Structures are given as structure tokens and as C-alpha cells.
């Protein structure tokens, strides 16, 4: 699978990226600026038709371009809301409302993030246990590994709502069902990365500790585990992003009352495009924060271990 190789090469690549990032602030700003301009252009272009339609129905004859521009950016239910509309919606639902309110996106975001993080922990533990088994037991490697790869071609995300409904009918509600979906998505990159990481020690080093008469447990803790950490963190970054996706999709069934996924669904039912976009932005920011937090943990850990940081 793709992550297979991405994770395998990630430690080397991330250091390359760090050297490149120094010179990339300006280009990134330019790209983001261009995206915002394109967004405004798209908002005008996509909303113009319905604004013109409204003018015609109101029987208005003349309209100036500036009027049209202003109207396309201040519609109640635009086809594509302008960035400042989304921003003011964010201001209204994040800053103005107390965080405990059901109208606050902070509240919904917390619901999503907490189940994503719970699933992330489950999935990471499962992934590490599987990888340890696969590295140490040859039969498991031969028999289980192909099925772990095949398990990812099952569109689990597509049956996430079913899992929620079925577990709900058994009395499991709240965080756990969503966390299970996140965990299923998470374990795969962790397993693949850790199998690679745990078998990454140089054969010379393995031979050396064997001449010291090290037990399997000692080889694991002194050699395999430390040398797999760079791979682990690369996988964790992929996994935490997947956990967010799993939690959001897990909230899609109508039963879910809270969470960013529920906001998306209710927004799509009532045609509240601004609400959808605001929820999407919050989801994106939260996913970025989670990945950033894992990246920070990676730097601290590798620094503590005396590695490059």
C-alpha cells in the first residue's frame, strides 16, 4: 500500500522537508492568498445566477456591478459562501457563544476530537501489538500480513454508520462506537510502519546483541523499540488524521446529536451552506492541530533520545 512506502521513507524525508521549509514561507503565503482569491471569484461566479434570478423576480431593472458583487457575498444560503461569511459564522459559533452551549462549534469539535483520540489510542495499541507479533512470529507474518493489507480495501468508512446503529441497538452509545471506527482506520498505518521499524535494526547490531546473549525481550527493548520510534511517529501522524476522519463519518447517522459530523449532516438537510463550511474549517484546523501535536511529541522524544532534532 502507499503508506507502506511513505512511512518507510518518512524519517529521511521529514528532515529534508525541514531544511526546505526555511525558504517556503513566502511561497506558501502566496499559494494560500491565491486560494482565497480563487474562493472569492468562485463565490461571485457560482452565486451570481441566483442573485440575478432574485433581481428578475423582484422586477429590478438596472443593477451595477458593485451591487451584484456585494449581494453575491452576503446571501442567506449561498451556493458557495464567501470566506468572510464563513469567518463571521466561525466568530459567532466559536467566540461569541459559551463553549458549553450546543450551538458552539468548540463543543461539537470537542465531541469529535475526544472520540477520535480514544480511537487513536486503541488503534495505536492494537497496531503495535500486531506489529510485535508479526516481527517475532514467522507464521503470523506469513498468514496475517496479507490479510492486514486486504483489510484496508474494505471500505470500512462506508459501513461506519451501520456499526454505529448496530452497536447503538445493543446499548453502546456515546464515544465507544465512534472510537472503534477510528481505531480500525488507525491500526493499519501503525502496523505497517512498526513492522518496518521493528525490523529496521542493522543485522550487524542484531548479531552483536546476540553475542551478548541478549534475550528476545532485551533485544526488543534495547534495540528494536528505540530504532522503530522514527517510523512509529511517521505512522502516528497518518493515523491521527485518519482517526479524525473516522470520528466525523461515525457521526453521520441521524442518531448523532453532537459532533462535527452531525453539524455537517444537519447543515446539508437544511441547506445551511455556511454552517457546513464552518464545520469543515473547524475539522481541518483540529486535524492540523492533532498532526502538529504528534509532530511536537516526535521532536521532543527524538531530542530526549539524543537524536537529530
Amino acid at each position, binding site marked *: 500500500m502507499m503508506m507502506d512506502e511513505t512511512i518507510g521513507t518518512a524519517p529521511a524525508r521529514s528532515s529534508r522537508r525541514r531544511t526546505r521549509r526555511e*525558504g517556503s514561507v513566502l511561497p506558501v503565503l502566496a*499559494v494560500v492568498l491565491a486560494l482565497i482569491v480563487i474562493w472569492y471569484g468562485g463565490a461571485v461566479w457560482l452565486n451570481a445566477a441566483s442573485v440575478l434570478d432574485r433581481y428578475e423576480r423582484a422586477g429590478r431593472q438596472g443593477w451595477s456591478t458593485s451591487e451584484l458583487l456585494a449581494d453575491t457575498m452576503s446571501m442567506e444560503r449561498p451556493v458557495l459562501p464567501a470566506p468572510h461569511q464563513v469567518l463571521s459564522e466561525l466568530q459567532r459559533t466559536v467566540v461569541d457563544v459559551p463553549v458549553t452551549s450546543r450551538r458552539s462549534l468548540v463543543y461539537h469539535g470537542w465531541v469529535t476530537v475526544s472520540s477520535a483520540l480514544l480511537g487513536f489510542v486503541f488503534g495505536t495499541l492494537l497496531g503495535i501489538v500486531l506489529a510485535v507479533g508479526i516481527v517475532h512470529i514467522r507464521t503470523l507474518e506469513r498468514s496475517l500480513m496479507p490479510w492486514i493489507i486486504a483489510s484496508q480495501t474494505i471500505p470500512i468508512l462506508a459501513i461506519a454508520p*451501520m456499526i454505529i446503529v448496530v452497536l447503538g441497538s445493543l446499548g453502546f452509545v456515546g464515544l465507544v462506537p465512534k472510537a472503534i471506527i477510528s481505531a480500525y482506520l488507525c491500526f493499519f498505518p501503525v502496523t505497517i510502519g512498526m513492522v518496518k521499524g521493528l525490523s529496521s535494526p542493522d543485522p550487524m547490531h542484531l548479531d552483536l546483541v546476540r553475542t551478548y546473549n541478549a534475550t528476545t525481550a532485551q533485544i526488543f527493548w534495547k534495540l528494536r523499540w528505540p530504532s522503530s520510534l522514527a517510523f512509529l511517529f511517521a505512522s502516528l501522524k497518518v493515523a491521527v488524521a485518519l482517526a479524525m476522519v473516522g470520528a*466525523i463519518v461515525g457521526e453521520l447517522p441521524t442518531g448523532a446529536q453532537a459532533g462535527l459530523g452531525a453539524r455537517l449532516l444537519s447543515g446539508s438537510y437544511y441547506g445551511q451552506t455556511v454552517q457546513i463550511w464552518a464545520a469543515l474549517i473547524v475539522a481541518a484546523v483540529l486535524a492540523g492541530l492533532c498532526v502538529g501535536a504528534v509532530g511536537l511529541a516526535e521532536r521532543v522524544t527524538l531530542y530526549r533520545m539524543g537524536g537529530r532534532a
Partner: protein
Amino acid sequence: MTRRHDAVLIAAIVAAFALVSLGGEAFDAIGLASWFLMIVLVSMSILHPLAATYAAVVALAAAASGAVALALVLRSGAHGAIGLSLGAFATSCVMWRALERLSSLSRTGGWLVLAVPLFFGVWLIYLWELVTVGFAIPSVLLPPPSQIAGVLASSLGVLGEDFVQTFIRSMIPGYVIGCGAGFLVGVLVDRVPFLQRGLLPVGNLVSALPIVGIAPIMVMWFGFDWPSKAAVVVIMTFFPMLVNTIAGLAALGRIERDLMRTYAASYRQTLLSARLPAALPFIFNALKLNSTLALIGAIVAEFFGTPIVGMGFRISASVGRMDIPLVWATITVAAVAGSAAYGAVALVERSLTFWHPSFRKAS
């Protein structure tokens, strides 16, 4: 043969005798005979170690006869939690032994490399059947594989229509457009270092975002039918392809670049004969990842509004009616289609990037 391996077999024999003593009346003549056949075969392989090939065959035969015996016990309608667990444990131990023998054989390569995961998969499905039927798990929670297969066979027409709607109409156009656009933009961006430095971090960020969330917006823009699903697939597949193309085009080594320069190769020649081939492993990584992403996107987009056909519609409608076996049948179709798409891309990759270290024999 080490002592640890014998311990597995001895545990199997103990469990096997325990089952006979617990639920002896549940066995009919054939069941009892094949159960004892398993015990005899296992004892034989402990007392008289065989060469690896024969040992694998004997262990497989023992596991098979144990499986037949347990299936007969189930058919006679006897459920006993302890007896069934003991039986499943005994046969699993024997099967594990068979897999161990097989995987030590498969070091030599050949078809055995496929046989080990195949037997393992068959065993998992058998255990699934055994547990769901034996412990009378309600089919709302987890239907047994036999029931799923029955539903699959009886509703082939409906599932076929869903497959055409979701896979052929929504996913394939979206996949082709998304991957094609990602690739072309990647090649164009590669010519402008400024854009490259700006787009790569943004692209990396976007590929980590929960993009399925745009599904409701696409449904609003493009309507309920397949174009909205294809649009979701386009957006989901675009960024992984873009990021991988840019990374792949940068993958060619300095020496090779210098070599092309000494040949006085033009940009076009360098691109076509050196940089694109070097980028192929990255591009195929994106193609493989996208083949599963695309199917997920197409199915999830159908949750937000759809005509009354399609896999996503079938799943959500059947969940609403608590017709869980049909859901599992749809999942089976999706899993087989997804694996086939992934396998097809992997095969093309193998034939185009045969030179890559990951495909060369380690020896």
C-alpha cells in the same frame, strides 16, 4: 521440532479429549470418527516426527477432519458454550501447527506463499461461521458467512445495479479525472520551483484533512445522481496524486540528472526518459492509495442524497430496515471490487517498475 511446538499439540489433544468427555452424546458416528481421526493424526505427529512436507499434510488433514467433526456437531443442533470453545480451541491449535509447518516450507517460494494466507483466511471464515452459529449470535449483530453468501446469491441483480451505479458510473470517472488532473498539475507545478515550494506543504496539509466532509456540498452543487459522487472522488484523489507526483519528479538522483545534462537532453527528453520513470513508484503509490479512497468517497457521498440505487444507498437503506445480511453482502461486493481494483493497479505497477528494489529478489 522444538518443545514449544509440541506444547501446542498437547494442548490440542487435551482440549479434544475434554470435548469428547463433555458433549459425547452430541456426536454422531461420522462426527465421532473424524474427531478421533484428528486426535490420532495429531498424536502420531507428536510420537513420530515426520519430514516437513508430510508433517504439513498430516496437520492439515487433522485440522480438516476436526473442522468436519465440529460442523457435524453444530448441524445436530447441540450448543454448548464450553464444549464448542474447547473444540474450536483444539482445532485452532492444530490449524496453527499446520500453518507453521506450511510457512516454514514456503521459505522455498512458489505457490505455497499464497497457500498460507489462503488457508488462514478460510480458517478465519470457518471460525466466524462456527462462533455465530454455535453461540446463536443474532444476525443483526453479525450474520454468519453462509447467510451472507445466501443473500449475495439471491440478490445478485440488485447488487449488480448498485455496483454499476457506484463503481462504474461514479468511481471510475472520478478516479480517472482526479488522478489525471493531479498528475498534470504536478508536472506543471514542477516547472515552477516557487509554486512547488508553496503547494507541497499545502497539499500535504490538505491530504491529511477529512475531505469526505465536502460530500454534502458536492451533492448540493451537482445534484443527487452520479456526477456529485464523481466530484467527491475527484477531490479526494487529486491531492494524494499531486503530492506524490511532485515528490516523485524530485526523486531522480543528482548523478542521473548530470548524466542527462551531458547528453544535452532537453527538458522534454529528461522528463520522459529519466524523471517520469523515476517518479513511477511514487505515482503508483498514489494510484493504489486512491483506488481505496475513491471507493470510500463514492459510497460515503451517497449517504447525503442519492437516487434509489448505489452501494451507499443500499447500505443506509438496509441499515434502516435492520436487514444486516444485505449490508454485509454489499460490503462483500465492495471489498471484492476494491481488492480487484487495488490488485489490478499493483499488477500494472509490477510490470512497469520491475526494476525497483522492492520487487527485486532479496537473494
